[in-house]
């Protein structure tokens, strides 16, 4: 199949070519609009029911033998295995398990982690030795991204948002055979939590969905707690088949990084100020408001501005959502918000907070962002502030491909919260390393522009023309509102227009799925430039 794939392509509503069928992955519908799924019947999945395993009283679930645990799981070639990415760059579970499976001679597995951390370059080695033939993920970076973009996997990678993955797992599009779930603290019957143990990581929101739907669940731990685990249980024992005790599930220093600090970069601070001004002008910052913000770059600085404003105006927010940072927890503790919903904890400041504070609540990723359940929290959100690699004149956002065309990011909850929030703001510097952020057309659409309300840069605020109301409020507040094409021209005047990367368009290496399972875009093999 290398070389011409001969996929039948159609254009979706964004004008992007997407395959209607991919051998090895199945048939796909093209994306039409953010909430098109509301208008068509969604049939309850005809999924296989999980086999009920009669419970043996006082069964000993603990083993320290990886290979025996794998044998008992019934894993076979061609099956799908899953992992969560709560241990981030400190994770040792993915490499340990893949190495063991490789030694056991497995081939042709589908790897379906909730995402892959930056540090997991070794996964590319398992593409090459045939252990992993298909990848389902939220993102691909480093050596893994390079391997995919250079066409090392025959079957295109399927990239999904967090909410989209939860939907796929629950709907049966992504059936998981064996879930290997890192458990920082676990008792012998498989009750586990991330709020404790030397490798504490906070929320286990991604693991909770896999634990409910995988055919076989193995908790992987390096710290056995007395039974019963207390006071918090993230994944209960009745979902767990085995407890695998290993020497180490990861490097605590890389799991619980130091608290993210507010940027001091003047450009980031300017962006944050502009973003905050837009939030204030939107009128959404009132009692009971809800708010999500990332932990990097300008994002925390936006949170700091929001906090000052709430203090000054005596506003008490409803809830904060998302990847939870220490800064957000501080806002909870200081009474700025009533509650925090935590699907993933970002820094060490939050790892023990849930055991101390009942209003810091762990939620699973379906509750966070699955568009097909009976109501996810992302759909209750007022304001979300999101980062981006590139944005185009139609406000489509790329958070996946770098300027060289190679996969280097992760979609995460970006499209889910952008679609759900009343106000979705993308914050980004107007150019990075001399390359403008606003493109005529982004390389890969990850979040459709229809769900994005504004791009905020240090050089001005570009509001989606669909949001006439917001443009009006921003102008009334005398904010530096700019047409997105005017900003693009202004920046290109400084930087010039760099060449686009070259792709082999006959070879699709990945597809990006919208939250509802339709396809947003295709990612193509990067053509290597001849170096001089």
């Amino acid at each position, binding site marked *: 199949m290398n070389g011409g794939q001969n996929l039948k392509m159609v254009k979706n509503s964004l004008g992007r070519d997407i395959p209607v069928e991919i051998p090895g992955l199945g048939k796909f519908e093209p994306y039409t609009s953010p909430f098109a799924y509301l208008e068509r019947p969604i049939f309850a999945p005809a999924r296989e029911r999980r086999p009920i395993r009669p419970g043996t009283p006082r069964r000993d679930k603990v083993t320290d033998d990886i290979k025996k645990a794998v044998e008992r799981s019934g894993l076979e070639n061609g099956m799908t295995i899953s992992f969560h990415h709560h241990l981030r760059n400190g994770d040792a579970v993915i490499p340990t398990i893949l190495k063991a499976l490789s030694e056991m001679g497995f081939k042709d597995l589908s790897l379906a982690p909730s995402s892959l951390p930056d540090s997991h370059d070794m996964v590319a080695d398992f593409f090459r030795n045939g252990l992993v033939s298909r990848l389902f993920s939220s993102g691909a970076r480093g050596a893994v991204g390079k391997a995919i973009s250079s066409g090392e996997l025959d079957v295109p990678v399927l990239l999904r948002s967090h909410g989209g993955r939860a939907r796929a797992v629950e709907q049966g599009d992504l059936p998981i055979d064996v879930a290997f779930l890192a458990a920082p603290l676990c008792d012998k019957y498989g009750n586990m939590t991330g709020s404790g143990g030397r490798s504490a990581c906070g929320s286990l929101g991604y693991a909770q969905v896999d634990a409910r739907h995988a055919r076989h669940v193995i908790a992987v731990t390096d710290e056995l707690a007395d039974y019963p685990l207390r006071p918090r249980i993230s994944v209960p024992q009745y979902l767990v088949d085995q407890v695998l005790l290993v020497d180490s599930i990861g490097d605590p220093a890389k799991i619980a990084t130091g608290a993210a600090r507010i940027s001091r970069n*003047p*450009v980031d*601070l*300017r962006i944050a*100020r502009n973003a905050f001004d837009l939030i204030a002008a939107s009128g959404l910052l009132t009692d009971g408001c809800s708010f999500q913000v990332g932990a990097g770059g300008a994002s925390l600085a936006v949170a700091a501005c929001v906090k000052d404003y709430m203090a000054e105006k005596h506003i008490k927010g409803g809830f904060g959502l998302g990847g939870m940072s220490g800064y957000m927890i501080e806002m909870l503790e200081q009474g700025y918000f009533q509650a925090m919903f935590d699907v993933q904890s970002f820094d060490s400041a939050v790892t023990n907070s849930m055991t101390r504070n009942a209003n810091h609540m762990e939620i699973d990723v379906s509750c966070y962002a699955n568009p097909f359940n009976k109501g996810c929290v992302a759909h209750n959100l007022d304001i979300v502030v999101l980062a981006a690699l590139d944005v185009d004149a139609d406000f489509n956002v790329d958070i996946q491909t770098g300027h060289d065309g190679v996969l280097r990011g992760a979609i995460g909850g970006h499209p889910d919260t952008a679609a759900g929030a009343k106000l979705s703001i993308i914050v980004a510097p*107007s150019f990075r390393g001399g390359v403008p952020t606003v493109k005529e057309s982004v390389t890969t659409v990850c979040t459709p522009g229809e769900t994005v309300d504004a791009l905020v840069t*240090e*050089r001005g605020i570009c509001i989606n023309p669909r949001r006439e109301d917001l443009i009006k409020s921003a102008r009334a507040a*005398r904010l530096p509102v700019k047409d997105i094409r005017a900003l693009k021209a202004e920046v290109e*005047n*400084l930087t010039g227009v760099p060449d686009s990367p070259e792709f082999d368009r006959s070879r699709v290496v990945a597809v990006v799925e919208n939250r509802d399972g339709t396809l947003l875009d295709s990612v193509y093999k990067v053509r290597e430039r001849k170096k001089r």
Partner: protein
Amino acid sequence: MKEKNEAMTVTPPRKHSCRSMLYMPGNNPGMIQHVPAFGADSVLLDLEDAVSEREKDAARRLVSHFVREVDFGDTLVTVRVNGADTPWLEKDLEEIIPSGPAAVRVPKCHSPEDVRHADELISRIEGEHGMPLGGVRIHAMLETAHGIECAYEIARASDRVEALTLGGQDLTADIGVQKTRDGVELFYARGRVVMAAKAAGLMAFDTVWTDIDDVEGLRAEAKLAVQMGFTGKAAIHPTQIEVIHEAYRPDHRELRRAFRIVDAAERAKREGKGVISVDGRMVDGPIVVRAFSLIELGRLYGIEEEADIR
């Protein structure tokens, strides 16, 4: 944005507000390109203290290029050159003046001679490049005890001088004291600089607040600068701009009264009356002038009419 004056004899007040002057190291293109985004009233591209000896040539070329080529938007562009006591002043002026900044800041003005020397050099360069004579103004920086005592003579040394600026760091060293948080040691110098500048019809700029983390300290010092009559204050970090602008925000009560004064003045003019009173008090010429300038200042904060004051 860059106004050129036709004759050297006139010293028109700048239309441009100059509440904040942001220092930018002249050897940092990565930051200079972001200047328009920071919202400072003016930028001060620095070739002096921020640039090490080894980088003087490169920075000079870079700044000259930036001033020539880059659109700084609404930000007034000035350049701090090296002082007369260095081997670089003449070279700096030769490359910077033709690029056409609004003004050059001449550091360490010790006596009127220093200003006249710079003025002669600039005039020669303007002439050689066919530029209008006197177009590039001088901001004379006073940072020695002697300079402070010569403030008025320096202000009057050339028609090219547009502003006096206080250099607090060097001055405290020169008079052998510590710079303290409340700045009591600079009180006399501040007063002297403002008075000399105002007497000569010039702008006066206050020194920098060096502790970036101490926002409250900056806030207090900026308020002091406003109270004492400074036109603006230098900033060493973009985050300081907003604090400085806040200090210059006109008091709402005072601004309301300014609107009433201007109103009454215009009515009196229409009706041919010479004397006006507002709120039962007599109002004379200087008060009307100040009311106009206060309203002008209010515009920078989005206040166009009395109804905008909330």
